């Protein structure tokens, strides 16, 4: 039995003008510790699917289960969600930002200061816990957001284009960091991205979606020689460009 099961998910958005089918017949399974990516043209519903997996709302029909438990309305299940921007609370210190998830989930007023400093050094940041988000650079803030996500020890990490707003150098560094941390903690992760290269460099498997309505078009296995490398090293490997060309052609055929 897989770790995460998405079975027969359909989702329709309603507006006063129309009912739009965002997702149709989605079936997929992800194993524990696996890193997968969702790619596809815009409008293919990949972010919608990610929100459904996060349990933020219920699909129109179908189910999403993690370890045989429904994700929607399940308060025991902790999910880590990283967004395109860091969305750190500007009026909270870095320490308060990192520990907010812990405080909300455990619902206590305990001081998690040492947790925050441990996580900060874990994501490669100097001790900035008393600073405010506006004092840090974009790359540092996204690292803090990663620390906030890891703080609650989530069962699964959902990454909604978390590197797309960063400059190229920070992006490459953060890709390596995230990939390393997830492997270290043995976390399962789903990445939504526009960047095909990023998907190949980071994932074990890639799900390609087609648009209007969003369907799962094809699944690609990333060869083992790329998986063992860090994302940065993977980009330089010869199998990387082979796979890139292959998926690129598929993507082109969809548009």
């Amino acid at each position: 039995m897989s770790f995460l099961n998405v079975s027969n998910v359909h989702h329709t958005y309603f507006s006063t003008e129309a009912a739009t089918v965002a997702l149709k017949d989605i079936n997929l399974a992800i194993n524990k510790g696996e890193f997968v990516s969702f790619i596809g043209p815009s409008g293919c519903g990949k972010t919608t699917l990610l929100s459904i997996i996060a349990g933020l709302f219920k699909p129109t029909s179908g189910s999403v289960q993690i370890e045989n438990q429904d994700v929607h309305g399940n308060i025991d299940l902790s999910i880590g969600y990283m967004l395109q921007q860091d969305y750190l609370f500007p009026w909270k210190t870095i320490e308060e930002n990192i520990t907010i998830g812990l405080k909300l989930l455990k619902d206590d007023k305990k001081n998690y200061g040492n947790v925050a400093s441990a996580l900060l050094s874990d994501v490669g940041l100097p001790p900035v816990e008393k600073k405010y988000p506006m004092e840090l650079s974009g790359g540092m803030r996204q690292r803090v957001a990663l620390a906030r996500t890891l703080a609650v020890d989530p069962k699964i990490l959902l990454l909604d284009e978390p590197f797309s707003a960063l400059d190229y150098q920070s992006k490459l560094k953060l890709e390596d960091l995230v990939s390393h941390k997830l492997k270290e903690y043995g976390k399962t992760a789903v990445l939504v991205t526009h960047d095909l290269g990023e998907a190949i460099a980071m994932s074990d498997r890639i799900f390609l979606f087609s648009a209007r309505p969003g369907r799962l078009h094809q699944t690609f296995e990333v060869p083992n020689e790329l998986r063992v490398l860090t994302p940065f090293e993977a980009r330089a490997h010869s199998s990387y460009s082979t796979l890139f060309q292959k998926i690129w052609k598929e993507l082109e055929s969809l548009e």
Partner: protein
Amino acid sequence: MNNQKLHEQFLQSLRKEKRWVRFYQLLILIAFFGLWEMASRFSWIDPLIFSSPSKVTSLLIDNIADGSILVHISYTLFETVLGFIIGTLLGTILAAILWWSPFLSKVLDPYLVILNSMPKVALGPILIVAMGPGMGSIITMGAIISVIISTIVIYTSFRNVDANYLKVLQTFNATRSQMFKEAILPSSFPTIISTLKVNVGLSWVGVIVGEFLVSSKGLGYLIIYGFQVFNFNLVLMSLLIIAVFATIMYQLVELLEKRLIKNI
């Protein structure tokens, strides 16, 4: 030339500019009172109606000496501060209720618009009859004039909080009240403070009009009394006192703003 010297020059030019700003501000003040005094002395304006700074000052000194003005000032100040606090607090609470229930906010929307566009001071006579001609109805006037606009402005700010902040909290299974406390309210502090600034002026209007209608104490009463006995020295003195205290209140709100909003 070295860098430090350049910086020193820059600071000096800043200080110089500031001195000139202060100079002109003072000049306007002196010119205003000077012209007023002269115009009154040489009867360019009717001294009976427009009084003069010297007459207002001597009246003020007399009234401070016999202690009567302090009673009026404290009376009005108390009503205004209380009306102002109640108005803003009630506005924030109502906004929170509307945010809590989107359905309720849809239902109440047209009524808020009606209440907002209605001139609240017109409710004065009804309030006085209902609550009695005392301090209670005047404080209510001070509050009621600002509560609806505060509600609307603060509610709008609640709704404009970036949904992604809520998404972050949602993934930590936050309840609606936790979301309110952690994201909605703190990110709306700047708006609440700017409502406070507007409400300083509004509650003075409410209280002064309330005192016009009913009171036997307070600065509004002094104005209406001075008007009735045609003592415009009294009217202008009260006006100047109001100007001073309204400014002080506004400055206090700005001070609060600086302490409260450090990082938004």
